[in-house]
Each structure stands twice: as C-alpha cells, then as structure tokens.
C-alpha cells in the first residue's frame, strides 16, 4: 500500500502490471511532437542561471543525444559577467562539422541572469516554459515513450516532489521524501516501475544539490549507484567533481 497523504486510491497493483510501449526510432516522430517542419533546424533554447545549474536537463540532453542527431551549443548572455569553465564545457567537446539543417534537433543552452530555468522553442510561437521540472518533463517526452494515465501521473508527482520538497524543501520535508523514496525503491528498481523515467533523473539530480546524499537510506543509496552507472549521468558526475 503506498502511503501518500492525499491518496484517493491504491495504485500499487496497477503499476506493477504496467508496461510501457517500445521506443520508436525515426525522426518523423519529432515532427509529430514538435509541429510542422518548415525546412530548418528546430532549436530548443534553454536559459539557466550559472549559479544554479539545472543538472537534470544536462542528463536529459545526454539521453537525447543517444537517440537523435543533436546540434548542441552553449552561450553566455551579456547579463552574466563570467561563467566557470566547466559549465561552458558541460556538453563536452562538440564537433560541429555539419551544416545546421542536417541535424534533427538543436539544443541551445544560454547561461543568463534568470531566476528560474526557462525554455523557448525556435519555430513555434509559444509562451516560455519555466521551471526545471516542467522542462525536464518536456525533454523526456521527446524520447517518445508512452505511459498509461496512472503511471504518467505518478512520474509527474515524483518530479514535483523532487523539485519542491527534496531540492527546495525544509530538512523535515527532505527527510520525509527520502523515506518515501526508500519505500518505493524497496518494491521496484526505479522510482516508477522497472525502467528509468524522468522521475529518477530529476530526483537523483535534486539529491546531488542538497546535503542529504550521503545520509540517504539503503535502497536510495543503491538506486543512486544504479543511476551513476548509466552513461547519461557521467557528464553531470564530471561537473560535480
């Protein structure tokens, strides 16, 4: 039985019988997800403050690079005096040997004096999306995995918990989250079900940016090691050193 203060029903059994649909591999999906192709590179632009780097977005960037041909760029905005070297190189060495339009997607990170991370999109006119959690959900959705309603809601819920209670919450809240995580991770290898989701990514990054990483309970520690063993997490590991 999952103990959540506001739970209306028990979803334990539903989750365990859930299966997510297999990943599809062609770029045509991007058009479906991102809108009409006007014949030019679709660029995802993220503005973030160098004093609070949004680590989960960097992990998601690595994940996206495994799946699509991505043109990555890092810029410094004139509103910021200087940015540490490791943040300027957070995408590693980029080989920009091909013309822009031969990439499937652009990922442009701008270090700027902003209160919260925000995302804008070059082709479609839309309001900027703010907040690391929201941007993380969007980026993860580009991978094309589909979940049923219950699972996706649980994932969303963990993302919010990670951002608002684990990363930004009081020490009491942090303690409570760690206990819930420990309980969930006792039943499944990942926070939601048997596969890595954006919930794990955001939660792991939030933990790195609090002091509680070392004091985490046993299942959480084990799960942290599993995350660290995955390739997309290595760029962030390097940053944290």
């Amino acid at each position, binding site marked *: 039985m999952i103990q959540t203060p506001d739970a209306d029903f028990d979803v334990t059994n539903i989750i365990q019988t859930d299966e997510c649909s297999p990943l599809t591999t062609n770029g045509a999906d991007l058009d479906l997800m991102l809108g009409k192709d006007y014949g030019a590179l679709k660029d995802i632009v993220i503005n973030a403050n160098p004093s609070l780097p949004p680590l989960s977005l960097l992990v998601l960037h690595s994940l996206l690079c495994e799946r699509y041909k991505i043109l990555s760029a890092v810029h410094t905005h004139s509103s910021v005096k200087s940015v540490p070297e490791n943040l300027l190189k957070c995408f590693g060495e980029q080989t920009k040997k091909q013309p*822009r339009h031969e990439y499937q997607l652009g990922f442009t990170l*701008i270090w700027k004096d902003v209160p919260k991370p925000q995302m804008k999109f070059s082709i479609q006119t839309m309001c900027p999306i703010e907040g690391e959690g929201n941007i993380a959900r969007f980026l993860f959705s580009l991978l094309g995995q589909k979940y049923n309603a219950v699972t996706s809601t649980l994932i969303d819920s963990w993302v919010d918990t990670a951002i608002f209670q684990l990363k930004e919450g009081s020490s009491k809240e942090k303690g409570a989250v760690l206990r819930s995580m420990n309980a969930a991770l006792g039943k499944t290898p990942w926070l939601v079900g048997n596969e890595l989701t954006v919930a794990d990514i955001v939660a792991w990054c939030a933990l790195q940016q609090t002091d509680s990483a070392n004091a985490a309970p046993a299942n959480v520690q084990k799960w942290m090691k599993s995350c660290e063993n995955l390739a997309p997490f290595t760029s962030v590991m390097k940053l944290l050193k």
Partner: protein
Amino acid sequence: MHQQKGIWSTGGFRRIMRGPRFIKSRETKTPQLKYGVSSMIQSQEKPDRVLIRIKDLTVEKADEVVWVRGRIHTSRAKGKQCFLVLRQQQFNIQALVAVGQHASKQMVKFAANINKESIVDVEGVVRKAHQKIGGCTQQDVELHVQRIYVISLAEPRLPLQLDDAVRPEVEGEEDGRATVNQDTRLDNRVIDLRTSTSQAIFCLQSGICQLFRETLIHKGFVEIQTPKIISAASEGGANVFTVSYFKSSAYLAQSPQLYKQMCICADFEKVFCIGPVFRAEDSNTHRHLTEFVGLDIEMAFNYHYHEVVDEIADTLVQIFKGLQERFQTEIQTVNKQFPCEPFKFLEPTLRLEYREAVAMLREAGVEMGDEEDLRYLGSTKMCQSLVKVVYDTDFYILDKYPLAVRPFYTMPDPVNPKNSNSYDMFMRGEEILSGAQRIHDPQLLTERAQHHGIDLEKIKAYIDSFRFGAPPHAGGGIGLERVTMLYLGLHNVRQTSMFPRDPKRLTP
C-alpha cells in the same frame, strides 16, 4: 598711468566685442584686478598655475583654492549674489560670486553679464554644498569665486540653446519646452557638439575604434592603408563619385575591397583598415551617408570560411564587452536624452542559417521565396523580433545567403549551387556587416563576372591579382557611424557622424 604688461593688462580693452551684455569696469585700470576681460592669449607668458579639471572638483578638495577653466553655461544674478554654472565637456559645477571680502558689487554685476558660452578662468575656494545640487554633475561642492576673467568671449545671441539641445523629445509637450531640430543642430554643429550627449556619443565612438584596433592587433592582424582615389568602381558603377584627375577622371573608393584582397594575395594573411568610404547613393534615409568611416577586415583561412566568421564575430563581441565595461558613464549620459534598452548579445555569437530565418518568418505568416532577399522585403526588423523572443540577443549572424542576391565575387556554396558562402550580421535588426568567402580562382571569378554582365576590361587588374597563387580568404566591413547608432539605440546615423555628409548636406 604705467601700462601693465602681461595677461591682465588693459591693452585687451580695445579688442572687446560690442554687445549690450558686456560691462566695462572702471576698476580695471588698477593693478591686481580681480575680474575683467583678459587680453587675447597669444602665448605671451607661461604662468606658474595649474588648472584643475571640473570633473575632479569633489568633496576631497573642500576648502582648497583652485583655478578652473570652463564655459559659462548659465548665469543668474540675485541681489548681492551671482550664481554661475561652469561647464567643461560633460561636467559642470555651480559657482558663486558674492559681495564681500573677495568681490565688489561691480564684480558681481560683471559676472552676471558675461555672455553664455564664454570661456572663463576662475579662481575660487571649493566648499561643500549644504544640499545636493541636482542640476550639476558635481553635486556635493560649489566654487566660491575670488577672481574671474574672460578668456574668450562669445557673441551674445546663440543660434541654439544647449539646454534645449539635450532635452528629451517627449510626445505632447506639457509646457511647450523647446527642443532643437536636426537641421539646426547640423548647421551649428560646433555648438551642438558641446552638449553632454554629443560629447558622450563621440567618446564612445572613439572607444569603438580603439577597441576594434586593440582586439585585432591582439589577434595578430596588421593595419593597412588603402588608396581612396581609384581607377575602377569596385562595387558596381551606379553609386560612385567621379573626380577629375588631371586630364582624365578617377573615382572615390566605395570600399577597400580590392585592396584588402590584394594584401591577402601579397601574404599579409590578416589585415584590417579604418578609413573613409564614399557612396554616391541618393538615399535620404536614417541610415545612409554619402561618406562614412569603414572598419574593414580581411583574413586568409585554412579550410573553411567559418574560421573567419568566428573571428569577426568575436571581434565585435569584444567591442561590445569593452563598451559595457569602460564606457558606462557615456552610455548613461546618452540614455538620459535618448532612453533605450541596453544592448544584449551572446558569447559565442548566435549564428543561424538563412533558411532558418526564412522558416521563422514563414511560420509567423510572411510569404517569401527561398531565394528572396530578406532586406528587400523589409523583414529584417521582424526577423530580429523573432530572434529576440527566442534567444534574447540584439546581435546575430545569418549564414548561407542565396547566391542570387550577392555580389559577383562571392564564393558559391560547394553543395547547393543556389546558395553562397556569405553572411550578414545584424544589430537591433539592422544589417551592419555584409561579408563572404571571396572567389580566389581567376577562372571562376571571370565566369561569375560574365554571368553578372560585368565588363571584364574594367576589372582586369582585380582578376590579375589572383593569378599567381591566392590563398582562400573571407572578410567583411562595418560602418562606424551605424554601429555607434545601433549600439546606443539611436535612430538617425547623422547623430553619430560628427560632420555628416548626405545628398543634401556638404557643410560644415
């Protein structure tokens, strides 16, 4: 009476200008006079006197006696006192002449009646001000005058009032306070340039030149000088000035293009030049001049013209950073009269492909063909607002323009023959640089010239320079006045040209 020689002699009397405001004093005949019109400075002597800059009169100098030279900005008599504002370039200070130990009634009257803009030498005590003097740059101190002499008298009626010239233009003036229109300013440019705004604009412009030079020299470029009297029109026959040249005629250079390239073929590798450019374009717009200062760059590269684009973009970014760091006072001064958003940019510079701009515009509802020139559609401003919304930058590059809209010497794209290896750079939505990889192969150059219907005889010397081994090279040039105007968010290039030239103006 014994005629006193030297700077305070009465000899200067005879050359005094007539005018109702100047008062002669009976006391000028006595030695050790504390006020008056001095004789013209003809380098008669070398007095042992240090003149302090008004900018340096601060609370730290309180109670010191100093000598200052400045202009009478305003004067106001009030009974036994006269308040003056003395101005020196961007700085001004309140000065007080009061009947008392140092000044007589006649001296106060004299001071109150000196014509505005006259240059005066003043000796006074620096005193801390009881309250901040809001109308002056030196707000914490005022000068209590002990001696005042007119060094150079101004005529009584000024063609324009400096206070009007710095007033911001406001829609729907409440009390109808005057501003000065552009033609009046330009006709009386010497006086208009004295305003704090003009002083700031041209100090900043000087900074742009200096930063351009510093950055390029640091990058290993060599500064060159190119001829301006030339035998053939470089950019096309239409917009060129002809000059008589002994028994025949010659042209004024429309750009240093030919010579920059020849320097590359002469193995100078990385060159830049700063010099006048002449365009006989009969355009009366906010951004065209017939003569302007060109800042040009040309560079040999190894394998890809992006090596050059990156260097040019970085040079401009270093200029923007330098202005941000070292010229804040000037930027704020200009903003007081002409408010605008500060200039924003990214490092490294944002570079989009031309087709992306076309896609953005189409998505926003503009109908255009793949090979149409953005500029002719008036779409550059719209493009800027789209780029600004997404990337929040006032400076960016568009790469890979269609070949059809570029000059004949532009290198075509290796993969898509409809495109070219050319680029434009934009500030606040207006184009400031047009550049490209140049064709360095004489055969291809000849073909492209023929395709454009250019008379090969006229460009024979140009094509010849590539016949004996020419490195692949690219470059571009910017206009100093236009860059200054756009950086400061001003709206007319005549504001940033000291003595502008356009189809209707040849003086001052």
